[in-house]
């Protein structure tokens, strides 16, 4: 699995039938990538529901959240609508698991993404990653700590974020 200081591989994936997202488009922002095994499965539901409540906290750290699983764009749309999720779920669907594989977060045996977290800075560098046991919801304390580290290193003495994309 990719770890701290690795360059985050770019991708472009569908979030719904008429929306796609790339990593590149978030340059200058911090990105939280949350790979998870499947829509509708109980543990993931809790994890995504938790992150869904945290979007304003993530925004304070200039961060956006992207969920990724091998489910299709239609499945993601239904799941996001039903759970009122307000962040994109990306479909790593064709070729199946290609992006998960690039990040080293693909479970070949089950044919699904691992439960893995990456925090990527505005320059596309991975600053923190974590592989969670498949049945354990990892919570968000690790994400917040990683974002805090990034923010501290790019913050002036007055507490104003500089957002330089050097």
């Amino acid at each position: 699995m990719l770890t701290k200081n690795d360059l985050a591989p770019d991708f472009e994936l569908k979030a719904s039938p008429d929306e796609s997202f790339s990593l590149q488009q978030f340059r200058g922002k911090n990105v939280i990538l949350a790979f998870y095994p499947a829509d509708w499965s109980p543990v993931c539901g809790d994890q995504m529901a938790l992150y869904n409540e945290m979007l304003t906290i993530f925004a304070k750290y200039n961060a956006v959240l992207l969920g990724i699983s091998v489910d299709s764009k239609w499945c993601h749309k239904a799941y996001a609508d039903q759970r009122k999720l307000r962040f994109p779920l990306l479909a790593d669907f064709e070729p199946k698991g290609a992006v998960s594989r690039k990040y080293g977060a693909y479970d070949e045996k089950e044919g699904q993404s691992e439960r893995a977290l990456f925090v990527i800075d505005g320059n596309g560098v991975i600053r923190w990653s974590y592989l969670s046991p498949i049945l354990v919801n990892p919570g968000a304390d690790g994400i917040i700590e990683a974002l805090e580290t990034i923010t501290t290193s790019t913050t002036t003495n007055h507490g104003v974020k500089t957002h330089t994309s050097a």
Partner: protein
Amino acid sequence: MASKLTPPLNQYDHVLGAQHPVIELIEFGDYQCPHCGAAFPIVKQLQKTYVKNMLFAFRHFPLTNAHEYAFTAAVAAEAAGRQDRFWEMHDLIFENQDQLSEELFPELAKAIGLNMAAFGRDLADPALTEKVEADFESGVRSGVNGTPSFYINGHKYNGSYDYDGLSAAIEQHITVKH
């Protein structure tokens, strides 16, 4: 993951129980979460069993997208807290969890004899909204990954929330202390 209560118990927490506790049990809960509803009588039972040496505190962790009344319920409990009746409201909300609505909270407030004008004002007070949000953020920092999440003497309890599991963990802390 760290999974330590962050920040530790402080003067902003609602606490109930022993004055010099050996055990501090903290719950992060959501008033509309059915699992928290199921844990409510279990916590009551624990409070009874460990009345001499346990302190219980409750921090809000409302999942507002999943549970439409969870946030208002938390603010209602805080508003009752302004009149020193936090725990009465806390209990009543859980006892009436199956019929939560916007109209229910004033009814509960009336039932416990709150000053209704003050209660109405406090419900709209941004300071109480901020208190609930601060509780949520402390949960996130403490590694809460669902509700209810329990912390015993500052450390996350990862077992199931049944009586036997929780009391076994509590006993362990009591044994360690003495």
